[in-house]
Structure formats: structure tokens, C-alpha cells
């Protein structure tokens, strides 16, 4: 494919905008003629920068991994404790109402006042 010059490119874009030419044709012409790229030695610079940072990045990966693992362990233990608590509550109180959760399901209001005030 022959590289287009400035005015050809301009005409191509304008005609594509006016006549709704197939976008893929315009794109391939533009990619060929404009040939955007980074300067020479780009890859080497990127790799040098990355592998100079590598120990820091590796530590970060390891921290993230162990943090996630610790989080899952804590979350699982917590969830298991809640389930056990609910089961024992249900077995003891016979229901899972809010009152039974607070441990006041079989208390009358008078006895609560008595309990709180001591009279």
C-alpha cells in the first residue's frame, strides 16, 4: 500500500466523513500512512524500567496475595461463628426473632424494669 501525503489524507478523511465510507478502509489507510510508533529502543527502556522495579513489584504482589488469603480466612471464620451462634440460639430459644437474639424473648416488660432499676 502506497503511503498517502498530507492532502490525500485530508481528502480521504473528509470524503469518509461526508460519504460515510467504510470505516475499516479509512482506518487501514490511516494506519499505513501515519504509522504511529514510539522511538527506537522503546521496548528495551520499558523492560529495563520494569525489571529495575521488579523487587518492589514482587513484594507488592506477595503482600496482595497474603492480604487476600488472610481476608478470606477471617471472613470464613466469622461466617462460621455466626452460623454456629444462630443454630445454638435457635436450639435454645426455639426461634430466631430479634428478641431471642437479644436474649429477652421470655422477659416481660415489668421484669425488665425491675432488672434495670433494681426495684
Amino acid at each position, binding site marked *: 500500500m502506497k503511503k498517502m501525503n498530507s492532502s490525500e*489524507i485530508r481528502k480521504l478523511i473528509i470524503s469518509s*466523513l461526508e460519504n460515510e465510507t467504510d470505516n475499516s478502509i479509512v482506518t487501514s489507510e490511516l494506519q499505513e500512512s*501515519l504509522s*504511529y*510508533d*514510539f*522511538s*527506537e529502543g*522503546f521496548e528495551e527502556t520499558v523492560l529495563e524500567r520494569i525489571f529495575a522495579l521488579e523487587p518492589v513489584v514482587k513484594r507488592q504482589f506477595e503482600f496482595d496475595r497474603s492480604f487476600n488469603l488472610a481476608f478470606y480466612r477471617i471472613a470464613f471464620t466469622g461466617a462460621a461463628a455466626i452460623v454456629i451462634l444462630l443454630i445454638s440460639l435457635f436450639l435454645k430459644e426455639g426461634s430466631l426473632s430479634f428478641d431471642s437474639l437479644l436474649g429477652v424473648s421470655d422477659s416481660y416488660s415489668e421484669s425488665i424494669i425491675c432488672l434495670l432499676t433494681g426495684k
Partner: protein
Amino acid sequence: MIKESYREVEDDILVKAALNGDKDAFGEIVSRYRKMVARTVKGMLGDSAFADDIGQEVFIKLYKSLPEFRGEAKLSTYIQKIAVNLTLNEIKRRKRFFSMFLQKGNNELHEFDIPDNGDEKRNDARETVNMALMALDPRFRIIVTMRMLQGYSTKETAEILDLPLGTVLSRLSRAQEQLKEILKKL
């Protein structure tokens, strides 16, 4: 130099190898996608010296975020998203920086682009396109870059930019109108 054996290897295998610390595998990813990233970054920022730095940042960020890449999207889309975000952040950063020193209305980004004086011959066609793109508002410029320079469909553009399809379509239509006027004046 990148290992020849990686030339035909698929992206997901390269990602796995790069995660295991294989420098050549990551080098192949850079080599495979550098032009795609250059189109986005240079389409948005112009042929400036900053563009290479942003390009490098894109691949460094990619390397750091590889453990989070689950392969649900294509690697190219994932890289493109990083490139778009970093480029838009750079535009915002420059806008903030220049607005601190210059009066409002006088801080158009293209006026501050440093021309790349490398050994590459000046590409007139590229200069024309860059000038036209730089005259567009960044919100429209990114849509034109994705559609015309990268060849993405409007749906893919919406996905990469995290925008609703309707927004992309309306911005594209306005961008095309503006671009036509700008190119006619050039």
C-alpha cells in the same frame, strides 16, 4: 532482543509466562502492542516527547496489573483501557498545570506540545492529522482516535471508554462535524 519462539504464541500464554517473571514474554507483549498504544497516545497527545513516557507508563502499569488480568476481555482491550486512562489523566494534569500559570482560554494543549526531534523524518500527513486532532476537544478527540485511528466499532469504543453507547454516538457525530470543518480550513 525478544525470543523468536514467542512470535507465534497466544496472548494468554504470554501473560502466564510474564507473570512467572519471563522477561522475553513481556517483551513480546510490548512489541506486539506498542503501535496500538502509540496510536492512542500520540493521537491524543500529539507527536510529543511526553508521548513516549506515557507509552512506557502504559506497559509498566500493565505489568503491575497483570495478576488482576483474568482474561475475560482481550488483552488488547485491557491495554487499550490503560492507555486511554493514562492519556486522559495526562491531559487533565497538563490542563491543571497550565491553568495555574496561564489565563483561561489560553491553555490549549496543542500549543505546548514539544515536537519530537528524533531521527525520524517529518511526516506531513501525520502532522496534518495531529493538528486536526489537537484542535478537537479531548472528549471528541478520544472518540475519533478510537474509531478512525484504531478502527474500533462504536460498541467497542463505548466499552473501552466506559461510556454509554448513546453518548459515544452523539460525541462521534459532533466530532465528525468539527473534524470536517477543521480539515477544510487546514
